[in-house]
């Protein structure tokens, strides 16, 4: 086109408009293909994040190593074991670690009581596991020294104690235990997956201070967060040190966060789905190629006339190519918008399957770019052959057809 840089684009748009039915048919297959690819990528991102969030809330951040010592020998009472493990962690330079000692007790307030799980932890526990606070704060070192200890409940415990009936939760004092109840003040509330029952977190030292009996079996779990790249090196060292303490088979060292393994499985499923979606897109591209070839065959005569008006081979090539690229780009954009709309419904759907983990994921623009990019590439691929055909004939041959 000599007239304007936009003349070829306008000419392509007019041709698409003049052949609405054919163009819409070509676009439909691309829309479905781009929608499929975008939704699969977006769904994969959402599912992956939901899975990771779930794992981080229940098992720990990557990489979390658990040293579980069940039924420790008499030489290693739990408080001694805890202190020794804390010293070991200092020696390892792994500050992101916390004991997790589980028991249970009755908690009561204003004549209402519920049996809850007691998790004795240190403030560093929040660096090991994802603790989604809905209000208040997490435990800090001062909470262990307080006469009336500060505690954190999960939302199930709050509901079990009927604390949502018009009273503020934070600052409320509850009674721990029944024989010699201890007054404890709520400083934070955690959301928790549905399957988790009522739970209460308190500084681990208080379990002994207030005579709360150990759980069954009595023992201790120590959770340590280490850089994922060092976890394979770390675990044998820890196990070796515990063995040297004579704990032997009583100490089980294992990696407890499985996010990596689970998400790699998800990636495999995602790749299979993406391949299927990609096939849908390629099928759409073949449809566009087919229609473009048909269109060129029908319009050979028109191209001859245009060249009689002064159109060059190059300008015709660009115009035909622009038609397919524009068709696929518009279809790609529509497919992406539809994928975006579908995406809005995804967290709700996935939330229903994963037990209520709250997922807040921004729309993966990578998926959107992928969709539009693939559409553009398809447009070029599907356009080159017809464009070359359009320019191959001589002017007179083309006019005679």
């Amino acid at each position, binding site marked *: 086109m000599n*007239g304007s840089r936009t*003349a070829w684009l306008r000419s392509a748009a007019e041709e698409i408009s003049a052949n609405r039915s054919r163009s819409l048919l070509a676009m439909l297959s691309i829309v479905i293909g781009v929608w499929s690819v975008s939704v699969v990528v977006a769904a994969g991102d959402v599912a992956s994040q939901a899975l990771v969030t779930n794992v981080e809330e229940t098992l720990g951040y990557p990489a979390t190593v658990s040293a579980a010592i069940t039924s420790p020998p008499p030489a290693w009472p739990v408080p001694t074991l805890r202190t020794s493990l804390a010293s070991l962690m200092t020696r390892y330079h792994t500050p992101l670690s916390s004991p997790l000692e589980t028991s249970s007790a009755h908690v009561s307030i204003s004549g209402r009581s519920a049996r809850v799980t007691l998790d004795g932890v240190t403030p560093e526990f929040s660096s090991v596991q994802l603790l989604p606070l809905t209000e208040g704060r997490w435990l800090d070192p001062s909470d262990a020294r307080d006469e009336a200890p500060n505690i954190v409940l999960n939302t199930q415990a709050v509901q079990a104690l009927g604390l949502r009936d018009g009273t503020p939760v934070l600052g409320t004092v509850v009674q721990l235990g029944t024989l010699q109840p201890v007054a404890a003040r709520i400083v934070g509330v955690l959301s928790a997956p549905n399957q988790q029952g009522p739970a209460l977190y308190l500084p681990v030292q208080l379990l002994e201070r207030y005579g709360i009996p150990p759980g069954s079996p009595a023992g201790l779990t120590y959770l340590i967060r280490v850089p994922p790249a060092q976890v394979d090196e770390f675990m044998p060292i820890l196990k070796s040190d515990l063995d040297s303490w004579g704990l032997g088979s009583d100490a089980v060292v294992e990696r407890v966060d499985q996010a990596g393994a689970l998400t790699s499985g998800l990636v495999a499923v995602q790749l299979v789905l993406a391949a299927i979606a990609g096939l849908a897109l390629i099928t759409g591209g073949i449809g566009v190629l087919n229609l473009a070839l048909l269109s060129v065959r029908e319009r050979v005569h028109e191209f001859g006339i245009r060249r009689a*008006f002064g*159109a060059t081979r190059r300008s015709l090539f660009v115009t035909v190519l622009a038609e397919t690229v524009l068709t696929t780009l518009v279809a790609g954009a529509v497919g992406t918008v539809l994928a975006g709309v579908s995406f809005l419904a995804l967290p709700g759907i996935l939330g229903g399957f994963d037990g209520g983990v709250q997922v807040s994921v921004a729309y993966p623009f990578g998926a959107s770019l992928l969709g539009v990019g693939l559409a553009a590439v398809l447009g070029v691929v599907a356009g080159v052959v017809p464009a070359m055909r359009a320019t191959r004939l001589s*002017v*007179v041959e083309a006019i005679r057809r």
Partner: protein
Amino acid sequence: MIRLRDVHKGFTVSDGRRLEILRGINLEVRRGESVAILGRSGSGKTTLLNIIGLLETSDSGVYELGDRAVADLSENELARLRGEHFGFVFQDYHLFPRRSALANVAAPLYHASRREYRDRRETARHLLHAVGLEGRERARPNVLSGGEQQRVAIARSLSRKPKCILADEPTGSLDVDTAERVLDLLFTIVRVQSCALVLITHDRDVARRADRVFTLREGALALTGS
């Protein structure tokens, strides 16, 4: 403006024989002049028109358009000259079937200068008005009569203000009355716009309206009337 000297053109047919269609054509067409070329079917009239319109090249001889010899020009250069110098009117109109009359007339302006492209709608509307098709801008070729379609084709040939209109049997598909009106229009426009006209026909009455009449017989061109 158009000068052909000793132009030859031939084709090789399926059995390998060489057919000489044009044998030493000499022709000069001046600006504002109308020239008719008579001849039987297959005499080479359209081939000669195609060579004049730069749609195909001659085998030998000299073709000068203005002060330029066109023999060694590149395809892009030929396309540019074709667009700037010639407007084509065909026997079967050759309109784009899915486009409106307005879009058909504006079509050549996509290959013109930036200014011509920008003003394409206005130009097309003006030309349709000039050929008596005001109010038919949005009509597609399938709803236009043969005479109306040829008038759209004439308007289209004028859209780039050509220096010469090349008309190949422009009334060949029209009834006598319609053909008469289309020819009136064509000759009037040529006179008003002072551009040249090369008209291919096999009808002596049509040819007689031109300033000069040539007859193409056995590959040679002879002046037979003026």
